[in-house]
């Protein structure tokens, strides 16, 4: 078996090489694979992790997250000053050029933020319009932000907004939403050479790239291919068709590493997994999940440690809070539910379900982990049918208020602050369908935590909120993830502690 496998791997490269246009070190071209398709180049219109990675390569923003200490650093900004709680002055770097050669000035920044604030079709609008009152030009290279309320996650939101050249997205009332969807005039370390939606993006190093914190890429050409099938990605990696793939599960990564054809890194990630429970009874009043004992029973029933170690592996760990313990504000001293199926059964009896009940659990990733939870819940009598599918299916059911419990994950890619996960998950139920707690207090505390700049006050609010969430068992916090990356032997790719892949830092060996 082993011999067969080794010979196969030795020769697959050999045999396949004539048929695959090999892009490699000799022509300075790095090829990476994404599982999910890229269909739009404009990060201001996207949310998937793949778009964040691409956005960081072709665009730039005022601020950036330093991976070493997980803090925000100026990128297009040169420095900033917090004048008061609702006024922030930002100075811009000079001589920064768009890919078309024109210089970036305060006009472009003002234009971009106005576009985000006033055009409600872009993805950042709903969040930014919540805090941004206006932005004004205070000089050729300086702007002033006037905020509606104090807003702690200001730097993160600025990091999310890719600066656009003035006029490129149209004008107010006549916004052109797809202006940057298939071509890009960005500021990032790479330029888009060609783009085939759902198939590939070809990038070339931006030789004019300013001296930003990302640094100038070492590799000149970069191709991103969409290969939806993990098996195909593995084959391509072994045959030299691609150099890098991520989201690789433990078993496959380790088996590949054993062949000696690739390096496997399984490092920490900011992503966390959790079950969101319909405590508020949105899917039907009086359903079993609305009972506190039932939610607590579910917390006791799932063996998170075992799943984190056996299925996810690497640095993955069980968590007890509705946030990743390493990020700012993620208070840890909350009520903890140890794995205890007996206690879970008792709680179900107390709740009036001695024979358990039927439950539909929605999920969209990590099918194995989802199945393991189904099994754990079955052991205490909760008969779960798993609805595993695309994220779109989950979103649709959630929007229709049909979900009693779903297995969610949140990447918080490169955003080391509890505000990021809280903002989307504990919104006012009128404005978002993820908050199923039905408890206005949670919304008040968890979103209150971002409406002040006072760090101690923020910590206090999050601590209160997280304690409440744990005590009422609004969620079943599951585990922090690990991020698995396979890279070819030709390249040096270093995984950062937040698990977010900064591909532009890759070098040839």
């Amino acid at each position: 078996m082993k011999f067969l496998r080794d010979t196969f791997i030795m020769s697959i490269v050999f045999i396949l090489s004539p048929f695959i246009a090999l892009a490699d070190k000799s022509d300075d071209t790095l090829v990476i694979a994404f599982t999910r398709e890229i269909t739009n180049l404009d990060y201001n219109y996207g949310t998937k992790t793949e778009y964040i990675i691409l956005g960081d390569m072709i665009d730039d923003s005022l601020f950036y997250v330093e991976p070493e200490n997980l803090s925000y650093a100026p990128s297009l900004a040169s420095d900033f000053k917090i004048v008061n709680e609702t006024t922030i002055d930002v100075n811009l770097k000079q001589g920064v050029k768009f890919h078309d050669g024109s210089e970036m000035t305060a006009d472009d920044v003002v234009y971009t933020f106005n576009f985000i604030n006033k055009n409600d079709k872009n993805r950042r609008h709903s969040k930014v319009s919540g805090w941004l009152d206006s932005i004004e030009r205070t000089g050729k290279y300086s702007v002033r932000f006037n905020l509606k309320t104090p807003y702690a996650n200001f730097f993160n939101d600025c990091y999310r907004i890719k600066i656009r050249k003035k006029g490129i997205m149209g004008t107010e009332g006549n916004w052109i939403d797809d202006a940057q969807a298939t071509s890009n005039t960005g500021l990032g370390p790479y330029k888009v050479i060609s783009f085939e939606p759902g198939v590939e993006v070809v990038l070339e190093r931006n030789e004019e790239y300013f001296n930003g914190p990302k640094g100038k890429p070492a590799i000149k050409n970069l191709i991103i291919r969409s290969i939806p099938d993990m098996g195909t990605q593995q084959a391509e990696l072994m045959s030299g068709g691609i150099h890098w793939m991520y989201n690789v599960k433990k078993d496959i990564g380790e088996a590949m590493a054993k062949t000696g054809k690739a390096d496997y890194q399984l490092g920490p990630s900011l992503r966390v997994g959790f079950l969101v429970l319909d405590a508020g009874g949105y899917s039907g009043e009086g359903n079993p999940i609305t009972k506190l004992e039932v939610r607590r029973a579910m917390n006791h029933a799932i063996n998170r440690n075992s799943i984190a170690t056996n299925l996810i592996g690497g640095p993955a760990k069980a968590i007890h809070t509705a946030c990743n313990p390493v990020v700012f504000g993620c208070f840890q001293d909350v009520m903890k539910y140890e794995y205890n199926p007996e206690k879970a059964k008792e709680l179900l009896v107390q709740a009036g379900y001695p024979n358990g009940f039927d439950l539909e659990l929605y999920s969209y990733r990590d099918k194995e982990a989802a199945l393991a939870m189904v099994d754990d819940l079955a052991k205490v009598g909760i008969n779960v049918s798993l609805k595993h599918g695309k994220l779109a299916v989950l979103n649709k059911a959630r929007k229709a208020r049909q979900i009693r419990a779903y297995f969610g994950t949140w990447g918080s890619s490169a955003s080391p602050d509890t505000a990021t996960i809280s903002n989307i998950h504990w919104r006012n139920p009128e404005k978002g369908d993820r908050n199923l707690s039905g408890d206005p207090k949670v919304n008040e505390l968890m979103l209150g935590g971002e409406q002040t700049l006072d760090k101690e006050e923020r910590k206090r609010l999050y601590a209160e909120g997280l304690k409440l969430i744990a005590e009422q068992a609004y969620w079943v916090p599951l585990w922090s993830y690990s991020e698995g990356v396979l890279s070819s032997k030709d390249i040096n790719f270093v995984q950062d502690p937040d698990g977010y892949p900064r591909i532009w830092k890759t070098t040839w060996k």
Partner: protein
Amino acid sequence: MLKFVAGRFLVSLAVAFTISFVTFFFLNIFTDPAQAVAGEEALFEEIEQIRTQYGFDRPILTRYFEWLGGIFTGDFGVSYYWNKPVGTLLLERAPQTIKLALMSVSVTIMVAIPLGIFAALNPNSIIDRFALSVAVSAQAIPNFWLGLILIIIFSVTFQIFPVSGDKTYYHFILPSIVLGTSSVPPVMRLMRTGLLDVINSDYIRTARSIGFSGWRLVTKHALRNAVLPVISVVAVQLGHKFGGSLITESVFAINGLGRLALLSILGADIPTVQILIFVFAITFIVFNLLSDILNAYLDPRLRL
């Protein structure tokens, strides 16, 4: 003949309309086009806004005729998922599928016709039984599994063919075998029974009795008569290939219409899905029409 062709053409046209109508209604009633445009993460307000902005709040019949009118003027709508006009998408992806369909039909012909001929010439022999078991097996093998098994054998163990992709013709060999296999049974069976009928027919028996024999007889007379109906079945099979490309293209990561269809379904991209169903149906209808006309040309009794 002309009357027959015209009649068939009209029926086909009607069928195409019916299918487009049913598909459009089905997709637009049971899914929310505004949601599809707004995308996965959209909030309530965003969706409502898009609904009025794109006119999804207008009556469905109005939208259907607009859509149909668009098709006639070459405007196939815009895919919000792929960020492209659907027409452009079709033009980009069609060559791969056409290539795959033609190559797989060639595989079918190369396997099924010789097998059918040999089986008919030697009824109840080992060859005949072998041909029959090939046909029975080919019917029972799931397409997607055959694809994976061929990958395990030819790409993993013996490393003869690439695992996936569509860069060169070489990439199309395994997929064509997979897709071609499913058409082997009907074509082979028809070839066999057709040829057997001709061989047992009076004129060939007579020819035999007056001294014609063996291969010459088969190739010159029997085959010519038996092969024509086979051609019409092959035409129908070619029509099937376009729809069948969905699974094969997905297994081998070929960026053709079939894979586009699957990804669009999973991405809830209604504009693309409804056009693709229509396009596949039209392809099928056209090949069927050709096959009908061919049959009618061969056998005047069918021109009813």
